[in-house]
Structures are given as structure tokens and as C-alpha cells.
């Protein structure tokens, strides 16, 4: 399972480099709106230079095979653009964690265990219903619910920071349930590694 996830991650990164993988609409990870100025497409020379991996300068960790892991070498912004973490989704006006949420967090916890130095900011987000003021607190409760569960899975609390963006930064721009369900989320943002 873990190996499969890693293969998926690698293929995602490579796929994005070649710009061939277009996610179907049914993917559980919503596509972020494209940034208007920055195109994450690396130059061909970058791609070829990736084929023979550069000598690892990271201090070797006996439990991790460093040389074959592009996530280890990628910068934070790049990892967040093709995040290995899946968001935890919530029901309307709720911070309760359902079975899907728990299994998502288990997978995310595995990644955090694998990359033991990573620090994550858990962003709580809400859909546009409810008042903007109420959503500031609701987003906080969502982020904290995820943090508490992640800690129960063995992730150190000081590797999990929380912030609520309320309904200020919707991921999906629409005004229907399809958009709302993506916007009711706790988002895993890598902030240090």
C-alpha cells in the first residue's frame, strides 16, 4: 500500500512535469484554480537532470530510501501544488469526522510518519453558507478535529499547526453543493520540511 502510494506520487510528479495527466472530474482531490502567472512546468533540462538523481545531500536516515524519492528533494511549494495529502471533507455545519475522513487521515498520517520532519498546517475551510463570521470558528473546529485525530494516530502535536480561513478562500468557485462539499474541508498544507 505504501509502495503503491509512493508510485502514485512519483507518477503524479512526473505526470505533471510532462503535463499529460488531466484529472477527471470525479477525482476526490479538486483541482486548484491555476495560478495566472506561474506555470509549474519545468524546463526539459530540469527533467533530464532528474533522470540520474543528484547525489543526496540530505543526511541519510536509515529508515528511508532517500535517493529514489522525489518528494524528499522537491521544494515545499512544489509539493503543495501536487500534494500527496488528501483533504478531509465535512458535512454542512459540522466538524464531525466520518469513516471516509478517518481513512483519509490514516493515509495522511502514514505520509507524515514517512517524512518525519514535515510540519503541516491544517487549514479549516467552510462553504459560503452560514455567515462569514460564524465560519471563522467553524473552520477552526474542523482543523482542530483533524489535528486531534492525527495526534491519536501518533503524529506529534507540534508538527500540526492549525488555522481557520472560514469561508474566505473557497477551493471551488461555484455556488452549488458540488462546490460546497469541496469547500468544507481541512486542507493539509506542508509548511516546513
Amino acid at each position, binding site marked *: 500500500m505504501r509502495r503503491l502510494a509512493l508510485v502514485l506520487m512519483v507518477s503524479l510528479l512526473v505526470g505533471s512535469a510532462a503535463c499529460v495527466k488531466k484529472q477527471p472530474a470525479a477525482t476526490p482531490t479538486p483541482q*486548484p*484554480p491555476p*495560478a*495566472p*502567472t*506561474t506555470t509549474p512546468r519545468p524546463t526539459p533540462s530540469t527533467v533530464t537532470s532528474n533522470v540520474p538523481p543528484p547525489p543526496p545531500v540530505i543526511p541519510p536516515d536509515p529508515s528511508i530510501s532517500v535517493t529514489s524519492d522525489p518528494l524528499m528533494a522537491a521544494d515545499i*511549494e512544489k509539493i*503543495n*501544488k501536487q*500534494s500527496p495529502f488528501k483533504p478531509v471533507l465535512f458535512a454542512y455545519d459540522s*466538524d464531525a469526522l466520518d469513516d471516509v475522513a478517518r481513512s483519509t487521515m490514516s493515509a495522511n498520517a502514514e505520509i507524515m510518519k514517512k517524512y518525519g520532519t514535515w510540519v503541516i*498546517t491544517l*487549514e479549516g475551510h467552510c462553504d459560503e453558507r*452560514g*455567515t*462569514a*463570521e*460564524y465560519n*471563522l*470558528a*467553524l473552520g*477552526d*473546529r*474542523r*482543523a*482542530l*478535529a483533524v489535528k486531534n485525530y492525527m495526534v491519536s494516530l501518533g503524529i506529534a502535536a507540534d508538527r500540526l*499547526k*492549525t*488555522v*481557520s*480561513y472560514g469561508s*474566505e*478562500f*473557497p*477551493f471551488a468557485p461555484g455556488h452549488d453543493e458540488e462546490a460546497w462539499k469541496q469547500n468544507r474541508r481541512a*486542507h493539509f*498544507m506542508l*509548511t516546513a520540511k
Partner: protein
Amino acid sequence: MHRSILAAVGVACGTGLVLAQAPPPPQQTPQRPTELSITLDNPGSHPKIGFQAIEVSDSRADVRAAAETILDVLIADLEFEREFYTIGRKASAGIPAASTPQSLPFSRWTELGAQFVFMGSLREISGKITVDVRLIKVQGGDAGRQDFGQSYGGCTLDNPRYCAHAIADDIHKQKRNLDGVARTRLAFTSDRDAEASTSRQMPDAGPGKEIYLMDYDGAGQRRLTFNRNLNIGANWGPGGRMLAYASFLANGPADILLTLLDGRPATRPARGPDWAANHLPAISPDGTKIAFMSSQGGQTGYYDVWVVNRDGTNMRNLTPNTPRSSEGAPTWSPNGQSIAFTSDRTGTNHVFIMNADGTGVRRITFAEKCDRPTWSALNFIAYTLERPGGKDIAVTELGRMEARVLTDGLGSNEQPAVAPNGRHVAFVTTRFGKRQIAMVDYPDGKFYRQLTTAGNNSYPSWSPLAK
């Protein structure tokens, strides 16, 4: 003071018919007659004013343009408060201009219904302009008598609008005993310049939102902050001389920034633990304290209303006894002795009032869900009413504890900000498409005006009167 404002509201005209110059509401909606709107229907008591062009001896185009701007803006300012009937300049275009009150063609003006005629003259000396204005009576035996006269120095060619606003405020004060709001401003949040802010460290979140300022009539919109993150919940201090707002730090929760709008760095008077968020500041009417919504009480996701001195001392939780509910969105009573706020302690959001020390909590809203109260100088509290069908601005009059809906249900309407004279409510609406700042008059819910057009806009705050 309150009584005089109330009296002025009591006679404000209720018929859109006579106010031909006022911008029509974008959507005609049936008005439910209320006690107030019926008593408003008293057109006889409103002075009718005609306007002569402002006389300019100079032939320079920019000076003449400034004179035109001043008159146009003045007329718009007077129409905004609905205390005068303005006679359209087109209707009076054929009346010959007079250079002295006695030479005004009285009968021509009275044919149009005018009781007063505005006369003005403007002179310019190296960019500075002086405007002399008069209101002259044109009806009755004392026609030609000056009813209002004032000279305005210190205006500039760069900002003729401000000159007009000063004239309008004086005319409202002297002729109608009304505190006009022509020199007030609004602060708000907008994402309109987000494309210039794409360096935000969060690639798949939305763009940055900054604080903007504008004149009360939507003119002069300009950005105040530029930190490429999220800045919301601006609130003015007394006299419009300070502004507080919540600003998100990089990858962290928001803290309250307080600026004196003088170019010096903002301070962080409510700063707490790094994990805690501070939001929705409300500066006390005397400017000494800031009430705000904070999670400093514990990492539970439940917020409280806190208060802190402007210099950061004496920070304390005013609602510590409700650990499993959120209290927030504070707003001060005009005398600074009470605070209204939102709490979901009953299961859904409602508006409560407490003494400024946290004692004496009582609930004042009961219908559906209510949030973001704004306490007006006219002894009412406006708030967002959230119903299954959408959000509207509602008002509870504190004397009679009577609640009613102010906006008309078109689009989503929320986050009210009340003008310092209590006669207008700015709010966020989707009725024009994106989220825009609009205004509607209180108490009759008439005269919708759109103030913003660019980007999405939210969190309006209306400045107090300049003192």
C-alpha cells in the same frame, strides 16, 4: 442630539415620486407599509432648492471643471439624505444666471417650485480654491434674503469633491439640524487586486484580500494594505482617525492590527499565543479599548469576546463561562457602556447584549439565526438574518425591542455597517452578481445604491463623523 436626529428621520420623505433626482432602486419591490414609512409621508416640510451654476471668473478648463464637480457632488450629497427636494439643473437651465441675490428672477424659480436658490462663486489661486456659497429665499415677501452663507477656503483643485461634502454637511446641519455623512468614509475588504498578489504561499487556496477605503459615495476607492494574504473585518475608531482589522500571518492565524493611518507601522495590541486567532475588532467609541473575537481561551475552536486597552494592557475574556459555544462579532453601544455580540449558546447564532465588563448578558434576537450586530447611534442594532431562503439585513429597535427585515430578499445580504447618523446601512450583497458593497436607507428600506464594482467585496465599516 438623538432626539433631533429622530425628528429629522420622522419627517424624511417617503415618496420616491417627488424625489425625481434620486437614483432609482435597481429593482422595484413592494414596500410593506410600516408605521414609520407612513409618518414619513410628509412632503410639505421639505425645502425645495434650485441650483444656479457656480460662477467662475477664470476661464481655465480645470477650474471650471472643479466648479461643475462641486455642484454635482453637492446636489448628490443633498439628495442622499433626502431632506431637500432638488430641482434638476436641466429643468432650470433656461433661467438666466444672476450675480446678486436681488437680481435672481424670482418668478422663474418659483414657477419650478423653488423656495431657495443656491448661488456660488469660485476663485482659484495657485491650486487652492475658495468657494462662497449662499442659499437665497425666492418665495414670499422676503425673497432675496440670504438664508445660508458660508465661504470655504482651503479646498484644492485636486479634491473638489471634499469641498462639496463640507458644504453639504453644513447645509444639513444648519437647515435641517442633521449630521450629514458626506465626509465619512468606508473601509472594506476586496480581492480586486488579487492578480497582483499571486505570490501568496498557498498555491491552491484563493487569492489575497486587502483592506480598501472609499468615500461614503463610493468615490476615491484605494487600497490601504498590501501584504498579499487575507485582511478582513476592518473597524474605524473615533473621528475616523484609526482603523483596526484582522490580518492573517504567513501560514498562521489572524491577529488584530491597529493603524493610526499616519504611515507608521501598525501595532498588535491583542497579540496572544501563536496558535490563537483574533478577529473582528471593534474600537470603543472613546478609542481607548478594542473588543474582539478570540480563540485565546483554549484550543477548542470555540471563541470568546475579549477586550484589551489600545496599548495592549489589561487584556481579558468577557465571556469565559460558555466554553462550548462561540461568542464573537462584538459592537459597542454609542455610549461605550454595553457590547452587543453573537453567541451560539442556544444552539444557533443570536445577538446578545452585555455590559462592557461582561456582566448582565441578555438576548435580543429570537428569529432564525442572527449574526454580526452593528449598534447604531439611533438606538437600533442591525445584523445579518440568516433564513433557509438566504441572508438579509434585519434591524431590532432597542426601545420597543421590535425586529424587522430591512433588505428586500434580492440576492444574499449580510454584514451591515450603519452610517453614523443612523439613516443608511451599507452591506454586502450578491444582487449585482459578485459580492458588492451597497447601501439602503433606514428605516424605510428604500434607495439601493451600489458602491463597488471591482472584484468581490465584503466587511464594510462606516467611519464615525470627523470631529
